[in-house]
């Protein structure tokens, strides 16, 4: 099976700043791949390189079997790209926006397709309202509907659920999985760990470098991190004492409990040893979370943002 996305050594520089630094990425058809990384890590730039909005300074690859540069037009025809910022026209109505997207993609028999899309969205009654009047969650769903109207084979979603409430996020992700079930490949960038866990696989990028790849479980397993959870009265208050201790990557309070992780089990055990005797608190070994892994990965890479 040909991969939906297969790029190697992608590089994008702005001046002396390398925003995307030799990124290799392969995504098989029908997979939902989560694209994670801190702000400014190069997620958006990578997505733009893949859908032909930017020209890479180095590297090559294929997207839907078409060459990344030579096949740009063909890729655009079969890809739906949803921008981070709402990219539809706020001064057009919901229906007009969908019709515009349909016309540009040359969809035959557009009317019923738009009707169906409106129906699926539940926006039939509001189809003549201006898109700018929609709330954040609805805007995102409309944007998604507009970019899947032409039945693309690949969906690139750039932080589609940023600032959207949990219910709308859940609906949005249900739609993503429904689309993936029809064979569409999805590459979606996000900051949310729960969303990352809903992906088939994840790719973690920081400062332009791809640092981890695989399913959530694989990423956690290969990280080699160890973690402890402290529960009991006042456990969460111990966080500041551990945060800067040697061997501790992160110590964070979750409600009343404390979650601590570090790369080396022995060093981590040594760090918490003085606190084990705290009365009323029990310590248990725990599974590191994805968040632990990402914070750990982020700390390992020197920030190259200062070089520019």
């Amino acid at each position: 099976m040909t991969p939906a996305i297969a790029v190697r050594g992608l590089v994008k520089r702005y001046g002396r700043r390398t925003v995307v630094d030799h990124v290799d990425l392969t995504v098989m058809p029908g997979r939902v791949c989560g694209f994670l990384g801190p702000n400014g890590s190069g997620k958006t730039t990578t997505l733009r390189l893949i859908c032909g909005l930017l020209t890479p300074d180095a590297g090559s690859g294929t997207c839907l079997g078409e060459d990344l540069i030579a096949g740009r037009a063909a890729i655009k025809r079969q890809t739906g790209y949803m921008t981070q910022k709402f990219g539809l026209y706020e001064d057009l109505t919901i229906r007009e926006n969908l019709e515009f997207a349909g016309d540009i993609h040359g969809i035959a028999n557009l009317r019923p397709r738009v009707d169906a899309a409106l129906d699926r969205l539940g926006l039939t009654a509001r189809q003549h309202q201006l898109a700018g009047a929609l709330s954040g969650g609805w805007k995102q769903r409309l944007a998604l509907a507009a970019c899947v109207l032409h039945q693309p084979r690949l969906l690139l979603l750039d932080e589609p659920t940023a600032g959207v409430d949990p219910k709308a996020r859940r609906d949005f992700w249900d739609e993503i999985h429904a689309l993936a079930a029809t064979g569409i490949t999805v590459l979606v960038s996000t900051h949310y760990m729960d969303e990352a866990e809903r992906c088939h696989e994840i790719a973690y990028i920081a400062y332009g470098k791809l640092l981890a790849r695989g399913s959530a479980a694989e990423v956690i397993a290969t990280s080699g991190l160890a973690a402890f959870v402290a529960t009991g009265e006042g456990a969460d208050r111990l966080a500041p004492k551990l945060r800067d201790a040697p061997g501790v990557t992160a110590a964070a309070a979750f409600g009343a409990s404390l979650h601590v992780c570090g790369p080396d089990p022995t060093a981590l055990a040594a760090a918490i040893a003085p606190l084990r005797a705290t009365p009323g608190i029990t310590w248990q070994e725990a599974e590191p979370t994805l968040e632990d892994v990402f914070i750990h990965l982020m700390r390992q890479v020197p920030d190259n943002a200062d070089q520019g």
Partner: protein
Amino acid sequence: MLRRLLAIIRKEVLQLRRDKLTFAMMFGMPIMQLILFGYAIDNDPKGLPTALLAADHGSMPRAITAALANTGYFAITRSATSEAEADAMLQQGEVQFVISIPADFTRRIIRHERAQIAVEADATDPTTTGNALAAVEPAIAQALARELTGPLASLAPKPGPVEVVLHRRYNPEGSTRDNVVPGLLAVILTMTMVMMTALAVTREYERGTMENLLAMPIRPIEVMLGKIAPYIAIGAVQVAVVLGAAKLLFDVPMAGSLALLSAATLLFITVNLAIGFTFSTVARNQLQAMQMSFFFLMPSILLSGFAFPFRGMPAWAQLIGETLPATHFLRVVRAVMLKGAGLPDIAAELAALLLLLALVGTLALARYRVTLD
């Protein structure tokens, strides 16, 4: 291709229709300019306030002042009793002219001595005083010819050996309106067409919709044509407004073919739209697009021959003027409307416009980016 083009056109029209202020401005602006330029601007002002400092109250000075008033340029609004008073009036701007007639005016004429009459003008603005001053000598000569009869007949000015026959063709009354109103067509179209398209593309970048548009399978030429087409229609309406007003309100003649003028106007509109589109590929935001449009408008008004005589400019300024579409279009409009020019008469100007269109259109397409690089 056609479907995508139509989609862009439809989108632009819908957006334009919902942008009430812009829409109103596009039709309000030509009307306002027409009224300002058509009614308010006159390069041949009449009835200018004049002070009379007459020390001689005889019939001859009276005949002369009456003749001056009859030219229409001088309205004797004040009379001064001393030179200092007259000076103050001129200095303070109460009057434009001071006519001084010395006490010995009549006596010197009767004694066959050369008499003097002084016309002092506030010539800070030469346009205001130029025509009035030119009318002084003929008016005085005429007045004297009537006054100097009987024994004084020999003093009357005699006709010279050469008679000059003046023939002001195409605009016999020297009406400013006949010159300015057709010229307004060039200015209004330059102003709105360049600005509107310059804004149309930068708006997409500023609102974040360009990224979405670029990610879709659409070609630059389709975006460009689609964004330009609606404004051609708006330009056509503006032209209709100006030409209608020219005829109905200002009675500007239409000596030539309306069809020829329309075709030339369409060409001019397209050139301006292409320029606006090029600006939009350079400007980073709508403010910059606006500034560039005004930067372009300035020479189009000043160096095209609209505001000031083209032939009065130094060679370098004329050279700049020649590169501006407004200059060529201005010649076309004036030629067709006032001189009844036909296609052969304006072919050179049309060729210049076509050349500009080819250059700017190529530049616009070359500058337009299919990527966000």
